């Protein structure tokens, strides 16, 4: 039983990272139906920005996190403006290919600027172990930070989407872009904000991963990016609580697969899950079945 609890804790930690990245995927998809494959790389850029802030400007966790989120928000808006906006009326496949292009661009740019080798992320928080159940279950202070920051950011996002003007505009645009425009909503600005918020969340994910594994590299966004995409689809792409649910479930499932089966199968299980959900319930766990007009 204690082993199971320990594995659950491991899984939730991993899952909160997936959830943070999945939120960005889901928001962008929800609004302009674009799978932004560069999202995982924005996550990586976020980690590097925080790394630079901490190493060269000697900042603490919170300022580094905020600077990294702001930087990536701007980066997200920039990517949208230059890479996706000109293609908004092109076939969806063009935007998808561009997204892959942006992803490769970011990965290689970072290798050029920072070197291809992995970097050690500085220790920013007091690393402390808490022993539960007579020392059989260990919770690390970093895991607690990771979970708390993730939950806080999700609550903040939920608040923005539900209660603010920009959130209302986002919801309107996601329902019907043209109708929203007719109602006087500035669609371009709304999309821009969506990218900014999604990218800022990815950046936070990157910083937290750097903090947790204390290791970052220019390709660190590739696999988590794919996993977060699976998580988003699993929970129901375009649905914010779905991304959270998908992220946490995927983290826990992966951990249990390697904890009780073999670590070699966990990626396979993640992708099998993607295929399964696409066959059984393409709209995802929390998705409603809406017939799309073609």
């Amino acid at each position, binding site marked *: 039983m204690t082993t199971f609890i*320990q*594995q659950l804790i*491991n899984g939730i930690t991993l899952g909160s990272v997936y959830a943070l990245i999945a939120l960005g995927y889901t928001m962008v998809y929800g609004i302009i139906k674009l799978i932004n494959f560069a999202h995982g790389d924005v996550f990586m850029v976020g980690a590097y920005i925080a790394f630079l802030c901490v190493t060269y400007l000697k900042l603490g966790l919170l300022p580094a996190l905020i600077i990294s989120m702001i930087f990536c928000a701007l980066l997200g808006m920039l990517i949208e403006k230059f890479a996706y906006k000109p293609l908004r009326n092109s076939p969806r496949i063009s935007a998808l290919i561009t997204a892959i292009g942006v992803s490769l661009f970011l990965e290689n740019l970072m290798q050029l600027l920072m070197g291809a080798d992995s970097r050690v992320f500085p220790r920013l928080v007091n690393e402390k172990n808490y*022993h539960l159940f007579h020392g059989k279950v*260990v919770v690390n202070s970093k895991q607690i930070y990771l979970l708390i920051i993730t939950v806080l950011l999700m609550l903040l996002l939920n608040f923005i989407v539900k209660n603010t003007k920009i959130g209302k505009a986002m919801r309107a645009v996601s329902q019907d872009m043209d109708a929203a425009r007719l109602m006087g909503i500035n669609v371009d600005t709304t999309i821009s904000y969506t990218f900014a918020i999604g990218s800022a969340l990815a950046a936070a994910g990157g910083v937290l991963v750097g903090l947790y*594994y204390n*290791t970052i590299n220019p390709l660190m966004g590739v696999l988590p990016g794919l996993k977060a995409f699976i998580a988003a689809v699993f929970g129901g792409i375009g649905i914010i609580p779905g991304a959270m649910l998908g992220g946490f479930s995927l983290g826990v499932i*992966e951990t249990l697969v390697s904890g009780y089966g073999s*670590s070699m199968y966990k990626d396979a299980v993640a992708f099998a899950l993607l295929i399964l959900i696409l066959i059984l319930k393409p709209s995802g766990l929390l998705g409603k079945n809406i017939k799309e007009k073609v």
Partner: protein
Amino acid sequence: MSFAASKTIKIGVNLELSQAVAQYGQKELEGLKLAIDEINQKGGVGGKKIELVILDNKSDKTEAQNVATRLAVREKVLAILGPATSGATKSAAVAATKYKVPIISPSATDDTVTVDERTGKTKAYVFRTCFNDSFQGNVMANFALKTLKAKSAAIIYDASSDYSKGLFKNFKQTFTKGGGKIVAEEAFAKGEQDFSSILTKIRDKKPDVIFAPVYYDEAGLIIKQARELGMNMPILGGDGFDDPKVVEKAGKKFANNVFFSAHYSSQDTDSKVQEFINKFKKKYNTEPNAFAALGYDLGYFIADALKRANLKFDSIAKDRERLKTAIENTKNFVGVTGIVNINKNHNAEKSAVIIELKNGVQMFKQKLNP
């Protein structure tokens, strides 16, 4: 310009200079360049200077083969030095065998690098100047049994790495033969960062030691995550642990009770070792690690073979054959990392050292001969 008229002897370098295990290749290149500079300053080999043609294989097996082909065909080098890792060297060996160019790896330790696993025959053009994994695996298994008095061990290995799998197999063989028990065998795939779930599983089995034949990136993470889960048993590894990144990633506090086999120790008082350390520090302003030492040795090793090869510069194919024979006949080559004898399997027979990490500092523990 014809081959015969060239003023330099072209030697190819095929190393991991970027991506996953760049640290090995970069350090080896630093050592190699230092050696070649010294040799050229003293007049080179037979009046000709050695010219290195350096290409990056990006820590990738396929790319390693492309690089080897390019060096053999387009750059027309006499021999190829590198790659650093086993998988890449095995892949490059295919091209080397096809084009009949000798390749020498300074650090590929997997047994099947020089010997074909299906036929059991030695690969004619493939050599290494380091010890192999049967030796390294034996050394660590015996160390666990005799010095640490371990009765049970858990193994974590990288299923995508030939190095890791080879070392795992050899360790297991010796450890079980010596009366030890393997209580867990956990594989992971390249690029893994989260070992907490497999470590939690291992924790339940309460092994006396953990053997993790992995490269430095994973080594640091495994040590750290194990200690964070409250697992304080000794963690053992191979020469892949020999990099400062291991301690940086694990943290000084956690880098204790860690033992690994290595090619050399900077604490060795041998005058050749100390002389090398001083020269290296003067040039690069950092301490050399074992890979730098292996790279340095490789420079002198190839120069020694070139000297004995009796090159005629009539045809590149014939000179490659002459060089190959000279490498095969290497006896008692004295390097920083030990005395090298090339045996019939194209392996280097030489000693290994065991290093312990104490609060992140490498301590010389034992020296073992083959």
